[in-house]
């Protein structure tokens, strides 16, 4: 096995330049301290402690009903926490009404005022501050230029397309230069193509303005694309807070591994550790004992664990691959997606593993077909051990 110099390794192909959360001297802009929200019969948010830094694009990710929206609404001031504190720039926000918080929100439904033109919508927040007319007009023009909606200034919201409304909502929320912009499923109402374009536009705007963005979404792809860090939430609790790379490549547990991206999970038992640091795991159904390169030091022989491998980090071949990690099975389904081909391979015990293959060439020699006996292989550092 080739020796890899680990000193220059980073986890995931992510942006590297911005990481205040690793700097012990950095002070967070927003701090949730043991924040809990109880509604009459249910706990929506359960003692969440979380720091968000200035200039950060932070994302709350989770299935619907996980408490991510409630957490954001508490920051906006629409809900009061039942317990804990929310600090903004070191100041406790308790009792500060929404209209006095330096936080603006872009609503999922956009909530544009239907009786006002685009221009008036964007100017609304500035008017509340009692700014002089020419200052407001200049700021509105600047905002409409930012979102490329200058030509639509006089239109009413119902005369705009979904994508245009989304831009107006963004301009309106940014017009007051908030310290923090909250985005509630900002791209949820857009179709797929437009959503992808808008993702990068939003990122560009965030970098240009340097405003802290906190986004709520249930779409893991959206979170992965845009966020500096992601907080994965489930049932009111934070499950993992990390960069997209860490969330994807080093998920803390089954929930995160399963919720973010596709994953194959096989159960096994730790049998020992080699001097090189590889963990040995006995997994029923595998062609031999598995070798996994995981930095976790706390595992004990005999411990039950799960080994998670992403489909794109596995190979499928007719011959048994080099290295120990292999499963044998039969090709059950083949899905051709253009850029990827998905193989669903049925092991002899009935379990199905997914393997994807990047279609880097137009022509394939002797392609693997349905019902062929094949081997699945993966490298030790392609897998992650999930202990919980």
């Amino acid at each position, binding site marked *: 096995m080739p020796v890899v110099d680990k000193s220059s390794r980073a986890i995931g192909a992510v942006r590297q330049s911005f990481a205040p959360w690793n700097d012990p001297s950095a002070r967070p802009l927003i701090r949730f301290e043991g924040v809990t929200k109880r509604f009459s019969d249910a706990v929506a948010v359960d003692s969440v402690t979380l720091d968000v830094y200035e200039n950060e694009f932070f994302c709350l990710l989770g299935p619907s009903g996980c408490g991510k929206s409630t957490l954001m609404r508490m920051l906006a001031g629409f809900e009061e926490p039942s317990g804990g504190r929310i600090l903004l720039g070191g100041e406790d926000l308790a009792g500060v009404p*929404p*209209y006095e918080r330096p936080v*603006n*929100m872009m*609503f999922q439904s956009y909530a544009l*005022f239907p009786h006002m033109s685009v221009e008036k919508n964007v100017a*609304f*927040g500035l008017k*509340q501050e009692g700014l002089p007319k020419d200052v407001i007009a200049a700021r509105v023009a600047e905002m409409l230029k930012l979102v490329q909606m200058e030509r639509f200034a006089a239109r009413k919201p119902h005369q705009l397309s979904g994508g245009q409304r989304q831009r107006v909502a963004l301009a309106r929320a940014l017009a007051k230069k908030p310290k923090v912009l909250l985005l509630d499923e900002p791209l949820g109402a857009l179709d797929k193509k437009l959503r992808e374009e808008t993702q990068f536009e939003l990122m560009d705007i965030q970098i240009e303005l340097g405003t802290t963005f906190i986004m709520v979404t249930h779409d893991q792809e959206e979170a992965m694309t845009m966020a500096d860090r992601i907080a994965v939430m489930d049932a009111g609790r934070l499950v993992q807070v990390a960069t997209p790379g860490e969330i994807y490549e080093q998920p803390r547990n089954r929930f995160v591994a399963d919720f973010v991206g596709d994953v194959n999970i096989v159960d096994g038992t730790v049998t020992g550790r080699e001097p090189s640091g590889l963990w040995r795991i006995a997994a029923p159904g595998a062609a031999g004992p598995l070798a996994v390169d995981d930095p976790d030091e706390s595992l004990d022989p005999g411990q039950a664990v799960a080994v998670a491998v992403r489909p794109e980090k596995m190979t499928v071949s007719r011959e048994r691959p080099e290295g120990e990690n292999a499963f044998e099975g039969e090709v059950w389904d083949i899905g051709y997606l253009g850029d990827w081909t998905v193989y669903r391979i049925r092991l002899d015990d009935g379990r199905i593993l997914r393997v994807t293959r990047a279609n880097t060439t137009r022509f394939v020699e002797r392609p693997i077909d349905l019902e062929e006996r094949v081997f699945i292989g993966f490298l030790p550092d392609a897998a992650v051990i999930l202990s919980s």
Partner: protein
Amino acid sequence: MARHTLRRDEPRRRGLGRKLVIGAPYLWLGAFFALPVLIVLKIALSYPELAQPPYGPTLDLAGGWAGFVAFLGELSFDNFAFIASDDLYVAALGSSLRIAASSTLMLLLVGYPIAYAMAKAPDGLRGILVAAVILPFWTSFLIRVYAWIGILRPEGLLNGFLVSIGVIDAPLTILNTEIAVHIGIVYTYLPFMVLPLYATLERMDDTLIEAAQDLGSTPLKAFWTITVPLSWPGIVAGSLLCFIPAVGEFVIPDLLGGSDTLMIGRILWSEFFSNRDWPLASAVAIVMLVVLVVPIVLFREAEARRMEESR
């Protein structure tokens, strides 16, 4: 062949059916609205007579074309000229408009909070509240207005209560004043104000208020800049729905207003039944109709706009 003929006939038959369905309401409006208005207009242009019917001229078709021309020649605008020249009618119309306007304003002030509270009530409660607003209709309008006599008269419930708790020493004169007319109109017309307001407020998206507050607007300011403008169609519809019938109101001023309250509906009644001057009464009715056409047109436009926005 037979099938072909049938097929070809189908659209035409359907066309006839459509015409019948669409024609029915026009027929209804023609028979029960346009025709009566034309009859009233004709009577308004006639002169009173001690005869049966109590006005002339009457059209005698036996006279042929010459008879018809003579008939037209006898019609005149004298009644309208009389109405314009006599202060009583102008004053009655003026005070009707004034009382209707001030009652409508009071209805709006009372009705808006009720409609707002209904629209913001929890889902389960809303239906019950709407039913509660409609419930008074289960009792006759006349009886409900009579009931107010019992409440408002000097020895009535209201005065008895106020005297007993010591707010006043002697009973107030409320019955047979314009105040009593206002109370009566506000009470009986309230559902007509509340329901259109409720319909627009209930449809309003609450996140708009959140968005306004998020952008720095206090709750009160958000109410004036967002809620009120968006409920404007409901305000106009409710106000006109109350104002228009209130102008011609007869029962309420007659029962609660006493002899001093001058309203055009009462004048109309007395011209018709006391003086038996059908032509003058009809002329008063026509004048009232013309005066009300303006708010009716406004009402229709507001309704059209409301439909447009609710698409």
